[in-house]
C-alpha cells in the first residue's frame, strides 16, 4: 500500500463537497421533478458515497484488488435487486392471478 499521506486540504474539500451535496439533496427533494425525484436523490447519494469511499477511505490510491472488493459488494446488491425486482415488476403481466 502506498504510504503517501493525503493533505488536510483534500479532506476538508471533500467534507465541504459532502455538505454541499447534503444541502442539494434536501433542496431537490422539495421540488417536484415527477418521476425524476428518486433517481436524482439516489444519484446524489451515490456521489456522496463514492466521495467517502474514494477519498476518506482511500480507495483512490489503493490496489486494484481493494477496488474490486469495494465494488463487488454493490455489484452483488445489484444482483439481489435486479433479479428480485424482475419478479415484482413482471407480476400480473399475464393477467392470471398469481402467475
Amino acid at each position, binding site marked *: 500500500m502506498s504510504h503517501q499521506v493525503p493533505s488536510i486540504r483534500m479532506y476538508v474539500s471533500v467534507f465541504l463537497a459532502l455538505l454541499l451535496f447534503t444541502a442539494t439533496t434536501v433542496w431537490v427533494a422539495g421540488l417536484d421533478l415527477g*418521476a425524476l425525484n428518486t433517481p436524482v436523490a439516489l444519484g446524489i447519494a451515490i456521489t456522496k458515497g463514492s466521495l467517502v469511499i474514494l477519498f476518506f477511505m482511500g480507495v483512490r490510491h489503493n490496489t486494484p484488488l481493494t477496488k474490486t472488493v469495494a465494488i463487488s459488494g454493490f455489484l452483488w446488491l445489484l444482483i439481489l435487486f435486479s433479479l428480485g425486482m424482475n419478479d415484482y415488476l413482471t*407480476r*400480473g*403481466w*399475464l*393477467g*392470471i*392471478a*398469481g*402467475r
Partner: protein
Amino acid sequence: MSSSLPLFPLSASTVSGEVDTLFFFILGVSAFFAILVSALMLYFTFKYRSKKAGDAGADIHGSLTLELIWTGIPFILAMVMFVWGAQLFFTMAKPPADAMDIFVVGKQWMWKVQHPEGVREINEMHVPINRPVRLTLGSEDVIHDFFIPAFRVKMDVVPGRLTTMWFTATTVGEYHIFCGQYCGTRHSGMIGTVVAMMPDDYEAWLAGGRTTGSAVQNGERLFTDLSCITCHKADSSGRGPTLGGVFGSTVQLNDGRRILADENYLRESIMTPQAKVVQGFQPIMPTFQGLVSEENLMQLIAYVKTLKPAETAPVPVKK
C-alpha cells in the same frame, strides 16, 4: 393399479402425460450420463490399476477440444430441457378461456371448496372430466399448497393474494389432494380427494348439493351489504369508478402506471384500495381488510367479474 407396490403415479389429466414425457426424456439423458461416467470410472479403475507402488500415471494435462465438447453438449441438452420445461409450464399456467371456476380456500388445516353454483365441500372436490377447471386459491392464514399428483399440478396458496391453477381431468376416479407447503401441526392431515366424474354425474351431484345461493349471487348480496354499491354505481354517478368491464381491462392509475386488472388487482382494490388508485379518483375507498373473509372476497370478485360495461358508453359527468 393392480400391483401391490405401485411405482408410478396415476395419470389422469391432460397435462400429466406431457409431464411424464418430459420426465422420461430427462431421465434418459440423466441415465445416459450417469451410466457413462460411472462405467468409465469403474473401467479405468480396473484397467489402470497400479502395477507397482509409486508408478506415476501418464503425463496428460488436458485437452481444450475435450473441454469444449463436454461443456457444449451438456449446455445444449440443458437448454433443450429448459425450453421444453418452460413451454410446458406456460401451458400449465394459462387456463383455457372456457374453463369453469372453482374457488378454494386453504386454512390450517383444511380445504374449503366452493363451486360457482354455490355448493360447498370440505377436503373434497368434485369435478367433471374433459372440462377445463380453473381453481382460484386463497389462504386465510399461512402458505399452503394445493397439489394433485395424479394431475401433475400444484400451486402455492399464499395469504394476501390469490393464485390460480387449472387442469382438465381425463379419467373418472378419486385422487389425492395434498397440501404441499408445510403449514404447521396437521400439515400432513391437510389432505383431501378429487372426485372426477362424468359430466352428467357431476351435474346431478351439483343439483343434489345444498346451496345458499351461487357465488355470484352471494357476491352481489355482499356488494350491497358492504355498501360498495353506494360508491360504485352502474352509471358513473358514484364516487367510485363503475366496475363494469373492469376485469381484464387495463386500468390507468393516477401515478402513471397502467395495470392489467386480474383477480389480484380486484383483491388488492378491496383490501388495500390505496395501493393503486384509479386515475381521476380520490383515495377515499376504505379498506375491507378484516371485514371480508377470503371466501367472501372470492364471491365479491366473482360478482365484479360478471359486471358488464354499461350499454351506452357513460358520458363523463362534470361536477
